[in-house]
């Protein structure tokens, strides 16, 4: 085969792949927006699900609120854990071996499938700790899911900083806590918030961890953290899986995607506003 043909084939390969990915992408986004936009209205967003079977009519308000609550609990849980771990690994841990082991463990935690996390949440949080199917159990399970995502990114942020700035703070006789809280946190606040928002996006869209730990077909807006909740991804699954309403499933998917895109765009706005400073 001469070089000309080879080059052409390579070009074709890249071009066709590029076009395939781009068209799939546009198809998915356009599909959801076209189908979804026509099936939502104000009542759908602010109303409770109605009809027999439930969800065939009415809205998804409790699911939106339930999802947001779940995400908040997950983010708080994961962020506290992730930042502490990242700070420990970057500022405290001086033992290379321990560092490597902890990185491997976090990496493995990141690779555990969400359904296994759901099982763990079910047997440990729901049954053993007696939380029941609840906002709390689901939130923590989702938190475990997004914890490695946040940890890895926060650690990278701290790892790429100028170490001399930290040492300069130490050289003033200031301890690590003060250096972190008053120097590093203010500097990297925006980056950390962006990371948490992205992770929150993953949490809000995940159905597998909450099937067993939190979500139910119908529940009002929860009043306590021990109440079961409705959640958008689970509601969507039920609507389509049980064949209740394709129309409302599109609407739910649309709302979910809009929520997610908002959370994806916020960090970008966040960094743009810094650029203008």
């Amino acid at each position, binding site marked *: 085969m001469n070089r000309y043909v080879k080059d052409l084939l390579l070009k074709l390969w890249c071009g066709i792949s590029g076009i395939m990915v781009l068209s799939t992408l546009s198809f998915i986004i356009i599909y959801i927006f076209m189908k979804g936009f026509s099936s939502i209205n104000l009542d759908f967003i602010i109303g409770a699900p109605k009809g027999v079977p439930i969800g065939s009519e009415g809205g998804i308000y409790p699911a939106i609120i339930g999802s947001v609550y779940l995400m908040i609990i997950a983010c708080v849980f994961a962020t506290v854990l992730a930042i502490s771990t990242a700070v420990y690994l970057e500022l405290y841990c001086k033992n290379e071996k321990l560092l490597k082991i902890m990185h491997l463990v976090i990496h493995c935690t990141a690779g555990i499938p969400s*359904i296994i996390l759901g099982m763990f949440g079910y047997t440990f949080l729901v049954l053993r700790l007696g939380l029941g199917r609840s906002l709390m159990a689901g939130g923590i399970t989702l938190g475990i899911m997004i914890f490695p995502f946040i940890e890895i990114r926060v650690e990278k942020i701290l790892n790429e900083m100028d170490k001399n700035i930290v040492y300069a703070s130490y050289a003033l006789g200031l301890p690590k806590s003060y250096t972190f809280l008053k120097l590093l946190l203010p500097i990297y606040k925006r980056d950390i918030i962006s990371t948490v928002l992205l992770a929150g996006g993953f949490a809000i869209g995940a159905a597998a961890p909450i099937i*067993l730990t939190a979500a139910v077909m119908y529940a009002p807006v929860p009043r306590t953290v021990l109440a079961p909740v409705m959640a958008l991804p689970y509601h969507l699954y039920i609507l389509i899986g049980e064949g209740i309403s394709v129309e409302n499933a599109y609407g739910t*998917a649309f709302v979910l995607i809009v929520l997610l895109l908002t959370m994806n765009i916020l960090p970008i706005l966040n960094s743009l506003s810094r650029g203008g400073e």
Partner: protein
Amino acid sequence: MYKIIEKIFSPIIRLLALCSVLILFLIIAFILKESLVIFKEVPILQFLLGRSWRPVSNTPTFSILPIILASMYVSVTAIVIALPIGIGCAMFISFFIGDVSREVLKSIINILAGIPSVVYGLIGLLVIVKYFEVRFSLVAGESVLAGGILLAIMILPYIINTCSESMIEIKKKYMATSDVLGVSKLYMISHLVLPAVSKAIIASTVLALGRAMGETMAVMMVIGNAPIMPKLLGKAQTIPSLIALEMGAAYVGSLHYHGLFAAGFVLMILLLLINIILYYIRRNISY
């Protein structure tokens, strides 16, 4: 004030860091503990290699070979579809378009990675499965192939990201030298870039395999969920979908319940292995 904070800060940080590591072991321990019960009734080999999963019949059988095989079948199908497209697309965005459009494209691809799997499942069911039914006049379009195609779309962002990252590194490093030598861009791609990123390609494959094996919702919605030996155009069931579907109905403490945990344990071990391999491949990537 800050002196008091300093006194409690370090112990809290250490404790939370310890907790975060313990989570993994807690997960492994609980899943293992709940699975052990089943092996008193069903020998491990029979559980792994038998062919029938009938947890609620009068003479229940617990064997997950078809389910393990289906998990792998659908994942491998997905990778076979996604890998060539992913590598091609990675080359496309690394070499054939400008910096600005690359950034735009990458952030769009990241959004694609963030779309929830139920939404993929919805599209899979209403587009791919329906197309199969109409085009091939199948009774039910739910199949391993449908799952594979859907999963391929879902893992594409991981492959594209991992590969293009490496390719751009290489490009930055060698483009100038390569230009000086007067070789064409395409010659450089096929003779320099592709061999150099082979490790990244392997890493992306392993990463994608992990994602595909663990995917629950999307696969569950398009694969038909029948625990039989998988065929490309037939229904099948994967371990995650088995758990998601049956766990809620399994009576806590029953053999069924423990059997599902054992299936989960098998999946977890597979994924831990995949991730440890991935960890070491990634550590060895350097240019």
